[in-house]
């Protein structure tokens, strides 16, 4: 026995093969990192124990091939090539055995112990098919083949048994013979690799990769190859693999009776050329309703609770003679800021529940197909539609929904434009200003913000698309998995991990941001201030007045309220109330007082200024929570900072254009 302490196992398989569900079924919820079913970009690690053998299990991103063209492939390849990994569990979707075996053959060539977990046997049965479980292992070099059901948690013990009893048996790396010409070259290259890299494992695999002109393997093994081959044999190697798979399929897969496929019938409606889009919109409307109608209703309770809580904390702090500034920092700064984040929990939990169900059921890939043509024109993936729509409700879950997109580029582009979709927190600002200055046209003025936001989003996406000189954006290529009943366990673990993630990461950023904003508004050059006009914020506001004047917003109170609005957009309204000495600016009397005070400070402040104010609030940086989420989702501080600068400049530019052009009229 090698190392009886722990066995390191890697789970490898195609996207949508049920790998994550199987992984969760074995390890439970105690994971190091969690991710989206199907688009696992991060590494998930869990533990399991069987017959006193401890196992460390690693889940890898779903891939179709062991090449190194995508990030997912590179991550997985590096993981399985690692000497630490002692066993590879290859999870295979039995219902699409033919395509799944392509990856299996490549894994076998590594020469490491491979255990085949044959998942989704129930679908095979349902379709009237049968797989010869005796013949299949024979054709694959006698590796253990274990039928499992990830969803029903069947066959897991047998799988673990196979793992701990076979991890010392390397698989035969010569399951497939490529024919004389290629085999000769593989032989020569293997000899040479052995001489130069005597400690190397997986010699045959490396030789094959060299023949395929694999960039990474070539640069890591700069051996002389020109005398053996001068062109890539990749195409031949792929075709021989698939030809071999076809011969396996002929021997092991039987149709007992043909049945019409349930998935095909469902797809007739859901991907219908005409009805596909309306059906999607209905589903979206329903998700929107759940997230915001139900979510906001629950959010109300959270807010009430928060109010009572902060009142109690404040009472206790005053009771124990805490300094005023500290009470204010804790209650108005930290509790209000961090608590604001907590109130989003219902929205986010419901949203992720809905998304996980859509993804796990197999519908999400169809969205990419259904919306491809429409979104493709702006250089966006069809799936980008979802975050954009959610952006009307709240930018935070919308940004998080961008995870459903396949590529980093698509995700980032979606994050750039999603904040332009006017979130519900901006509405109070529109209501305040359009109510003050637009009279009976108030609704039109407010509604125009939503339209402008959408136009800006599409315009920016389009400009980025053109700037990056992409070839046609419609190179959609995506697998549409079998529809299935969403797995409760997978969804539960997913939603829980997302929430935990959100609270820990966005929470820490918010904690710092709320302290900073509190300092800016409550401290001045003479220490703690009660009058905001003496605060650092006011000083900054006065300093920025000249900059904001071309945009029609040259008033320090406006600048301060905009800065305060970064903590949450609706704060623009409440800080306006404070700065103009009104209890509640949302009442009619309050509205009139604010309008009057505005006029007193600057007699020229009119509808045009108000419109520019609304426009600026629409376009400038989203709230701190949204930015923290962008930071977390993009994993890049520089991207977040650049985006924030772009948004401020864009908002300023648009407001300035509108104000300058408007002033001429």
């Amino acid at each position, binding site marked *: 026995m090698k190392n009886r302490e722990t066995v390191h196992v890697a789970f490898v398989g195609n996207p949508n093969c049920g790998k994550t569900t199987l992984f969760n079924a074995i390890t439970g919820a105690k994971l190091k990192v969690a991710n989206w079913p199907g688009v696992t970009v991060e590494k998930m690690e869990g533990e399991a124990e069987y017959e006193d053998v401890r196992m460390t299990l690693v889940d890898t991103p779903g891939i179709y091939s062991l*090449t190194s063209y995508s990030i997912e492939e590179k991550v997985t390849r590096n993981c399985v090539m690692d000497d630490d990994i002692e066993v590879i569990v290859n999870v295979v979707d039995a219902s699409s055995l033919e395509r799944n075996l392509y990856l299996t053959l490549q894994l076998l060539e590594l020469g490491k112990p491979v255990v085949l977990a044959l998942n989704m046997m129930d679908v095979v049965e349902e379709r009237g098919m049968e797989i010869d479980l005796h013949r299949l292992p024979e054709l694959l070099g006698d590796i253990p083949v274990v039928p499992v059901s990830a969803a029903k948690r069947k066959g897991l013990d047998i799988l673990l048994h196979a793992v701990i009893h076979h991890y010392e048996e390397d698989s035969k790396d010569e399951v497939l013979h490529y024919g004389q010409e290629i085999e000769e070259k593989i032989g020569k290259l293997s000899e040479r690799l052995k001489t130069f890299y005597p400690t190397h494992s997986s010699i045959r695999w490396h030789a094959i990769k060299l023949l395929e002109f694999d960039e990474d393997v070539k640069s890591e093994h700069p051996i002389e190859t020109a005398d053996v081959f001068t062109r890539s044999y990749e*195409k031949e190697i792929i075709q021989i693999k698939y030809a071999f798979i076809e011969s396996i399929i002929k021997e092991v897969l039987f149709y007992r009776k043909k049945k019409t496929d349930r998935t095909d019938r469902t797809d007739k409606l859901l991907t219908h050329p005409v009805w596909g889009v309306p059906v999607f919109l209905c589903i979206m409307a329903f998700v929107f309703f759940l997230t915001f109608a139900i979510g906001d209703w629950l959010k109300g309770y959270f807010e009430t609770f928060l109010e009572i809580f902060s009142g109690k904390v404040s009472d206790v702090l005053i009771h124990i003679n805490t300094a005023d500034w500290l009470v204010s920092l804790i209650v108005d700064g930290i509790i209000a800021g961090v608590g604001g984040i907590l109130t989003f929990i219902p929205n986010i939990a419901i949203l992720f529940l809905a998304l996980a169900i859509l993804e796990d059921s197999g519908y999400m890939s169809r969205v990419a*197909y259904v919306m491809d*043509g429409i979104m493709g024109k702006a250089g966006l993936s069809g799936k980008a539609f979802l975050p954009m729509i959610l952006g009307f409700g709240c930018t935070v879950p919308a940004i998080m929904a961008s995870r459903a997109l396949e590529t980093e580029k698509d995700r980032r582009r979606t994050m750039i434009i999603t904040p332009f979709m006017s979130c519900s927190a901006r509405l109070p600002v529109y209501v305040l200003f359009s109510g003050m200055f637009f009279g009976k046209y108030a609704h039109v003025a407010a509604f125009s913000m939503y339209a402008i936001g959408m136009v800006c989003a599409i315009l920016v996406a389009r400009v980025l698309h053109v700037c990056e000189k992409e070839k*046609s954006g*419609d190179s*959609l290529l995506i697998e*549409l998995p079998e529809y299935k009943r969403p797995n409760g366990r997978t969804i539960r673990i997913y939603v829980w991990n997302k929430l935990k993630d959100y609270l820990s990461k966005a929470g820490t950023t918010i904690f710092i941001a709320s302290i900073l904003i509190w300092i800016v508004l409550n401290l001045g050059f003479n220490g703690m201030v009660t009058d905001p006009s003496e605060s650092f914020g006011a000083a900054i506001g006065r300093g920025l007045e000249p900059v904001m004047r071309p945009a029609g917003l040259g008033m320090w109170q406006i600048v301060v309220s905009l800065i305060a609005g970064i903590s949450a957009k609706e704060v623009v309204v409440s800080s306006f109330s404070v700065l103009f000495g009104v209890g509640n600016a949302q009442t009619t009397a309050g509205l009139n007082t604010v309008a009057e005070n505005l006029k007193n400070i600057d007699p020229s402040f009119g509808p045009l200024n108000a419109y520019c104010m609304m426009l600026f609030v629409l376009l400038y940086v989203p709230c701190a929570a949204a930015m923290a989420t962008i930071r977390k989702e993009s994993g890049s501080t520089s991207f977040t900072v650049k985006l924030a600068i772009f948004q401020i400049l864009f908002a300023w530019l648009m407001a300035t254009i509108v104000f300058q052009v408007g002033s001429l009229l």
Partner: protein
Amino acid sequence: MSLFEGITGKSYEIRGLYVEEGITRRLQALGLNDGTIITVLNRKKDGALIIRVRGTRLAIGRHISQGIDVEERAL
């Protein structure tokens, strides 16, 4: 003919892939090679289509479908 002209319900044999190298490799890994039989399951006006290949379904955009040379095959 190109797969772009494919008709729902009919089957085709792939004759050649004429798209960017990166996409070609992805298609090959997904099992679309010369001689592979595919069936068009669904198509939209803009040319995106759903095909069945080797027991799985793939959605393919217009750009790629135009680059796949096929010949009709009766099943």
